[in-house]
């Protein structure tokens, strides 16, 4: 007979077989988000010579159901940047509140400090990477469009793993497959951005949104499009 303390008060192994301690566990292992629920699809963006164009449709899908059809997925931040968010919509709403509180604290003092798009992208990438390291990711992919510290056009992405990526044209979700190759015809290299006009960029994005509506079953024909330049940014319904 086993006289060791860990065997006290338990059925004897030699009579009942080895004791299965897993039955004592009252808690399941902690699990966080393992898949998104209500989702938004692609976000597209193109840099041009003095700004960035960004677009995302207004649909939030629940699986294959087009659940909400007036969801704004472009989120302006302090007139210098716009964040386009794809992926889980409730996580997007959390990010929206996070940016809201950041905006509130940034505006306590009126002495002229403001976060530019580059700062904002750095911040968001830290948030996303922290969450993935906690194994509790925010299920989104974001494009941050705007101007950097030198008022140059800025465009960069961050995803649920905290991975960041920069390019003159960017597209998330289905758009990464369908729109990105088309957008690269506009500018496939940083050096070409200087030759892209605003009209050309807007036209390319609109064309891609159309292609996506035709090919992506989780997309919608109503979308938001925004242009950020030195003169400020504005979101339009489409």
């Amino acid at each position, binding site marked *: 007979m086993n006289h060791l303390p860990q065997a006290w008060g338990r059925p004897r192994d030699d009579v009942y077989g080895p004791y299965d301690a897993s039955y004592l566990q009252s808690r399941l292992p902690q699990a966080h988000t393992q898949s998104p629920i209500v989702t938004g699809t692609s976000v597209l963006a193109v840099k041009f010579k003095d700004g960035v164009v960004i677009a995302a449709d207004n649909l939030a899908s629940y699986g294959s159901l087009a659940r909400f059809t007036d969801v704004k997925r472009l989120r302006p931040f302090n007139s210098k940047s716009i964040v386009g968010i794809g992926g889980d919509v409730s996580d997007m709403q959390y990010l929206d509140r996070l940016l809201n509180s950041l905006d509130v604290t940034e505006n306590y*003092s009126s*002495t*002229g*400090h403001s*976060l530019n798009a*580059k*700062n904002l992208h*750095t*911040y968001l990438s*830290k948030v996303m990477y922290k969450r993935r390291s906690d194994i509790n990711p925010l299920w989104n992919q974001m494009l941050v469009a705007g101007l950097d*510290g*030198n008022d140059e056009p800025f465009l960069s992405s961050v995803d649920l793993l905290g991975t960041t990526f920069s390019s003159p044209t960017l597209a998330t979700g289905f758009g990464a497959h369908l729109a990105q190759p088309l957008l690269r015809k506009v500018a496939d290299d940083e050096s070409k951005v200087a030759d892209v006009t605003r009209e050309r960029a807007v036209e390319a994005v609109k064309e891609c949104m159309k292609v996506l509506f035709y090919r992506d079953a989780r997309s919608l024909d109503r979308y938001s499009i925004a242009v950020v330049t030195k003169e400020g940014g504005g979101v339009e319904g489409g």
Partner: protein
Amino acid sequence: MFRNNYDNDSVTFSPQGRIFQVEYASEAVKQGSVVVGIVSKTHTVLVALKRNAEELSSYQKKVIGIDEHFGIALAGLASDARVLSNFMKQQALASKMTYGRPIPLERIVTQIGDRAQTSTQVYGKRPYGVGLLIAGVDETGPHLFEFQPSGMTQEMIACAIGARSQMARTYLERHLDEFADASRDELIKHGLLALKESLSQDKELTVDNASVGVTGIAKDGKRKVETFKLYDGSEVGPLLEAALESAELAGGEAREGESMEVDS
């Protein structure tokens, strides 16, 4: 014997509404050797008089670089300053890490101010026994702040704290109008001369006891920052020479002409 019953801790108001412990902490600042700070439209300068405990010992550090874009000068308990400067270094680094931007000076100053305020309102803590001048450059240009043990922080055009600093302040007030448009070299010169004013008779500025810290907006590029540069030891020599020479010129009633060209 106590001066009164209201000065044993920082959680007791006197009948006049004063907090003596905080006032006593400010006295510690006045015991420290003098430091001077000046800001122009393009640069900030910190100048300090270092002290050594005895002939053979080294000199106490008075100017500390915190981040690329700013530094501090201290008067009072150096160990308290170290706690605050470590805190500032952490915060500056955190700002770089999370936003990729140099921390706005106003913000870091508010943070140490708030920290210092806590120790004036809670039993079992003591106020910091140090005054600081925080000088640097951020997105909105060059700034100079004064920090006091009470947690009070103020943005200044020029400031001097520490022993006999009144003389330096008098110099600063007299030359207040010249600072805004002063060049980098002129600003250093003003700092050293203000410092010289507050020296006791038997002392003079030497390469051993003077420290200078400078930051500014770099000439090339609109938002580039000139990294905080600390001049210590032999590096101070040329700066001192230029300052003293111009003082002599002014003394010999010749209006100070071109200040001597000093290369950093």
